[in-house]
């Protein structure tokens, strides 16, 4: 969404540095919320959500004009004392790379990350794999044998590609850790389980290009089918 600032927020934003020429990247909490969100603020008075529709918002501003959009936008009710400037992080700047070519060693580039793609039902047969450095992976409910909400995996096919060509999983899945991946948890979601799949975007100095599958609501009970050592 696109919003405009309250005058008090605008004054505060004027008192803090820009992130780049003409804009600031901030985070803040909405009144009544405890969760921080990030926004881009143009000229200290137009606020744009940083989410999967960000480029659509930008196009709206370009096509319809800054003044027109500002005039029509509702005010964003941020807690002024929660507003903080966010430093630029060059590691993840390539999130929206648009080219779509398949690279060597069966990686993919461009396209979209899982969160930017539509939701789909699992077919009940497909297997997904979550790789981890930790045997007690916290995203897995070992009692109910399921993924908990908001968990990423890759597909079994992409995992096999990674293993068979002896690819580096840290780079393929753009993971921020230097620890060895030791475990592979196999998940077979039920047909009622919902996922989003996409291409791992470059991050943390890694290329990405593996397949990622995101389970916003986790998976059904008894969908964890096995745990194996990585690559075995």
């Amino acid at each position, binding site marked *: 969404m696109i919003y405009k600032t309250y005058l008090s927020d605008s004054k505060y934003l004027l008192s803090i540095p820009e992130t780049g020429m003409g804009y600031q990247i901030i985070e803040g909490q909405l009144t009544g919320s405890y969760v921080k*969100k990030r926004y881009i603020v143009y000229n200290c008075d137009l606020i744009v959500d940083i989410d999967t529709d*960000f480029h659509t918002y930008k196009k709206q501003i370009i096509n319809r004009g800054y003044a027109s959009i500002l005039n029509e936008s509702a005010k964003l009710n941020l807690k002024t004392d929660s507003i903080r400037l966010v430093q630029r*992080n060059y590691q993840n700047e390539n999130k929206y790379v648009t080219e779509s070519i398949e690279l060597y060693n069966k990686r993919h580039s461009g396209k979209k990350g899982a969160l930017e793609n539509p939701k789909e039902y699992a077919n009940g047969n497909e297997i997904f794999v979550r790789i981890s*450095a930790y045997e007690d992976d916290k995203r897995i409910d070992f009692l109910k044998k399921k993924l908990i*909400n908001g*968990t990423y995996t890759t597909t079994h096919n992409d995992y096999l590609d990674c293993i068979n060509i002896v690819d580096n999983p840290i780079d393929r899945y753009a993971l*921020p850790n230097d620890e060895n991946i030791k475990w592979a948890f196999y998940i077979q979601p039920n047909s009622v389980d919902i996922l989003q799949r996409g291409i791992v975007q470059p991050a943390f100095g890694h290329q990405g290009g593996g397949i990622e599958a995101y389970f916003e609501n986790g998976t059904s009970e008894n969908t964890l089918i096995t745990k194996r050592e990585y690559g075995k």
Partner: protein
Amino acid sequence: MENKLKLKEEQINYLSSFPEQGMGYQIVDITLKNGIVLYNRIVFNSSYLKLNATEKIELDDIIQIDIIQNDWVV
């Protein structure tokens, strides 16, 4: 070996209740009791806070952990 700090069980449980930003990690802001905020820090497995190589932080220094809901896309 990375320099990392294992969080308290209550903090682990808190982070486990939020989505990941990628396979096996979350991005958080850490507020220390001296008022310093460490932005965009990585927590592995909802349990291990990744520290800079020479950084020394005690568990008791941490007074707040804020999960970053939407990931960094600019």
